[in-house]
């Protein structure tokens, strides 16, 4: 049976199309989910895509968190459904308290858009088990508010529990604490990543095809194949 990956569209989402395309290229069936519906349409996993949901008003992700679809996404995530938040999706996951910390204005105030090297730090999550720890991947980063912050206790806890999923290497694009680019929840089913794996899934349009691994990881995770 084909894995069905729901991709949420909020008003202001931009990367839902690419996320759906990445899901398809990995061999899954993308299912569009609408922000105003309290329905998951039987999907096996959910992607919260990048963009500027609700105009990024108030704080990035603060209003999207209260979208009707987020009620069901939150419940499903707590039940173990894999959820990947990319960029704005990461911000929404933090605002929804599904992940700790917050994403704040880049320390240099510039919007940063470039290809970025990341080092994978955890290959046990639902979205990174097809990668290896220490592996370097090249994916686009594009954000104005991507600086990950949390109090020291939270950061130490994330490190100790192996929940820092990826770090920026050869330059931190936004001033994130401890160069954090991606984190997971305790169970490893919810992952937030600031850079964009969905933009690096084919040679023609991306700097690499490294991003596809996030989606093939999910398929591997759901089919129970040993990581």
């Amino acid at each position: 049976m084909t894995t069905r990956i729901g991709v949420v569209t909020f008003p202001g989402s931009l990367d839902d199309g690419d996320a759906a395309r990445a899901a398809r290229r990995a061999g899954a069936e993308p299912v569009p989910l609408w922000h105003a519906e309290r329905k998951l349409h039987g999907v096996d996993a959910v992607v919260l895509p990048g963009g500027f949901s609700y105009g990024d008003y108030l704080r990035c992700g603060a209003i999207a968190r209260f979208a009707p679809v987020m009620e069901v996404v939150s419940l499903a995530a707590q039940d173990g459904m894999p959820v990947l938040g990319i960029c704005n999706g990461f911000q929404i996951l933090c605002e929804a308290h599904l992940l700790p910390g917050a994403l704040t204005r880049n320390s240099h105030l510039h919007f940063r858009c470039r290809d970025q090297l990341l080092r994978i730090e955890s290959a046990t999550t639902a979205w990174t088990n097809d990668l290896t720890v220490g592996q370097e991947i090249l994916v686009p980063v594009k954000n104005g508010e991507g600086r990950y912050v949390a109090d020291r206790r939270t950061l130490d806890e994330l490190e100790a529990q192996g929940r820092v999923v990826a770090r920026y290497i050869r330059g931190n694009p936004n001033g994130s604490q401890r160069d954090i680019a991606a984190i997971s929840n305790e169970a490893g089913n919810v992952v937030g990543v600031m850079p964009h794996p969905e933009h690096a899934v084919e040679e023609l349009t991306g700097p690499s095809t490294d991003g596809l691994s996030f989606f093939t990881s999910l398929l591997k995770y759901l089919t129970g194949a040993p990581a």
Partner: protein
Amino acid sequence: MPRVVVDVMLKPEILDPQGQAVANALPRLGVSDVASVRIGKRIEIEFVGGGEGESAGLHLDSAREIVDKLLVNPVIEEYTIRVEK
């Protein structure tokens, strides 16, 4: 109309690059005695109905709920709240 005013600031330990950018621009204005600038936001919430006595307290409770759930992210922000006469 009863109005509740909320002042939101980034916590002192959270970097405020916007404030820093403003502070760095001040010498261009010929101002050189500013140690730091931090930027927050003021939110005004107006309620329907009377704002006296007991109902003022209810509005304040209601405003606090709005603030805690939506307006402020306690990970990075802090706030003060008051009913404006």
